[in-house]
């Protein structure tokens, strides 16, 4: 591949602006369309002149947080995916490689089995702590030895801890019985039914991590040439990898805490983005953010209509889109 879809700086900027407009439209559509039909006038009134009616409540407490969470989780997952693929040098890397989803799930299962945790807000906190804990553990395990953090060691550590925590979670679920309906629902990944508090709790961390990702972009470009080359160019790779790890945890942990484990966004979007703008992280990061948000918004809107009037969790939608894409990438040997 000699050229990318968008070659010049002007084209790339235009593409990014188009993506932002599309995402804005996505948020509006996500608020406007659903099982309950609500007029545009009522939607606007719910913001300007809230009167506590059923329709206003749906817009304010259900659809708005849902749209914002879909956008934030999609953007975060895609950026986190691009970073993970860079750090592990593995084109199919996703949050599971850092053990993030398994760790989040394990903490939720333990929380509900032994401490009576329930409700999506409690789950959000547990998920975030679990994700951060597991990712830190993966990071430490992957760094043992003279050569420090290497792609292969972090991949193995992530796979091992994912298997370990998943088994423990499943064991607890099997023996725990009926108390886990809520947990099972969480396991699929969905942006529905969350209140605004879940969004406002995680959003500042994700915003901070997003800014960090933009700052790190230049350094990630150098790190992607390999450890030795990066050191030779004067990079303190230990710090860059640590900072990238923190960004990944905040983004992927934040999104799993908001929406549960949503698969494939972190794989599909970075690959599409690299096809569009190439591998320069200074473009990859903003593009991933914008188009990750778009994908999850679109998937979530689609999930309301695929078996109308029943809703399908968005995690199922992304899997339906994602699996064929995953196979396609794998067949091409990881190349985009």
């Amino acid at each position, binding site marked *: *591949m*000699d*050229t*990318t879809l968008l070659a010049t700086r002007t084209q790339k900027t235009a593409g990014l602006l188009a993506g932002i407009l599309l995402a804005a439209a996505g948020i509006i559509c996500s608020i406007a369309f659903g099982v309950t039909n609500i007029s545009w006038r009522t939607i606007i009134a719910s913001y300007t002149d809230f009167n506590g009616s059923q329709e206003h409540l749906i817009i304010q407490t259900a659809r708005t947080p849902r749209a914002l969470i879909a956008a934030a989780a999609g953007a975060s997952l895609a950026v986190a995916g691009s970073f993970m693929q860079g750090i592990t*040098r593995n084109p199919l890397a996703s949050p599971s490689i850092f053990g993030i989803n398994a760790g989040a799930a394990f903490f939720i299962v333990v929380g509900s089995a032994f401490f009576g945790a329930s409700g999506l807000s409690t789950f959000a906190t547990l998920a975030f702590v679990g994700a951060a804990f597991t990712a830190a553990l993966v990071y430490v395990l992957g760094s043992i030895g*003279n050569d420090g953090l290497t792609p292969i060691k972090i991949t193995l550590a992530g796979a091992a801890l994912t298997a370990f925590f998943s088994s423990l979670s499943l064991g607890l679920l099997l023996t725990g019985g009926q108390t886990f309906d809520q947990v099972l629902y969480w396991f699929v990944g969905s942006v529905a039914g969350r209140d605004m508090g879940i969004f406002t709790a995680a959003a500042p961390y994700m915003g901070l991590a997003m800014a960090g990702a933009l700052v790190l972009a*230049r350094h990630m*470009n*150098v790190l*992607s*040439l*390999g450890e*030795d*080359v990066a*050191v*030779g*160019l*004067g*990079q*303190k790779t230990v710090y860059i990898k640590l900072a990238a790890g923190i960004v990944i945890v905040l983004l992927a942990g934040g999104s799993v805490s908001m929406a549960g484990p949503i698969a494939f966004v972190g794989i599909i979007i970075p690959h599409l983005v*690299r096809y569009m703008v*190439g*591998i*320069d992280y200074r473009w990859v990061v903003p593009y991933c953010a914008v188009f990750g948000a778009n994908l999850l918004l679109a998937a979530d809107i689609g999930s309301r209509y695929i078996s109308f009037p029943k809703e399908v969790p968005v995690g199922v939608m992304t899997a339906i889109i994602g699996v064929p894409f995953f196979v396609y990438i794998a067949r091409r040997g*990881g*190349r*985009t």
Partner: protein
Amino acid sequence: MSVIEARSLTLSYGHKPVFAELDLLIPPGKITVLIGSNGCGKSTLLRSLARLLKPQEGSIWLDGSEMSRLSSKEIARRLAILPQGPVAPEGLTVHQLVKQGRYPYQSWLQQWSKEDEKMVKKALEVTDMEDLSDRSIDSLSGGQRQRAWIAMTLAQNTPAILLDEPTTYLDMTHQIEVLDLLFDLNEQESRTIVMVLHDINLACRYAHRIVAVKDGLIYAQGAPETIMNERLIRDVFDMECQVTADPIFGTPLCIPYGRGRKVLQPVMA
């Protein structure tokens, strides 16, 4: 010009020592080639000189200051290292790669300067990669690829360049192409060049100074024409050979003994 020096360098992998108390002075403005059999530690030595490996004991000195006291960026402005078999990420273009060579000159405030632009242009020119600058690395031939990586180290604009087996996996044409480029860089800009080479004859032809490494010790060092002889090859490579003069360059030429066909009427060009 840049002086690199190792003082009582001690380094081991696990319990197996690679070097003990090794001293080495790399002369500035010259081409130095490290030779030795596989696993003798020559690559490890080169990587230590470039601070890719930390010595357990002893120190590396760069222009009179101890390397561990210099910042990594400071070192990167004086010394470039091209590791063995570097792999560029898929889709990276030559121009994008070469631009990364300016990393040690950039900071929060100074992101991309005229000087950066100039050095990248010059590096592409010197390596004859201008026409290929928009091609992706993975679409290039082995020799072009290696030239692209060398262009990146040139953009770093350092007085010293270290290269770990820059000709491995290249066919003969491309080997000569890469070595000629490095030779010119030394001749025209008197850059200090240190590299590991496998081909003894090419090492003799291009190097001002050869360092022969055996079992973590420096067996011999000096100009190829003074140190190269049958005994050195026997001791360092465990191989019998005859050393004669290269008919064109006059540099030592090592012809290994062994089996093979013999022709009674030698064909001469």
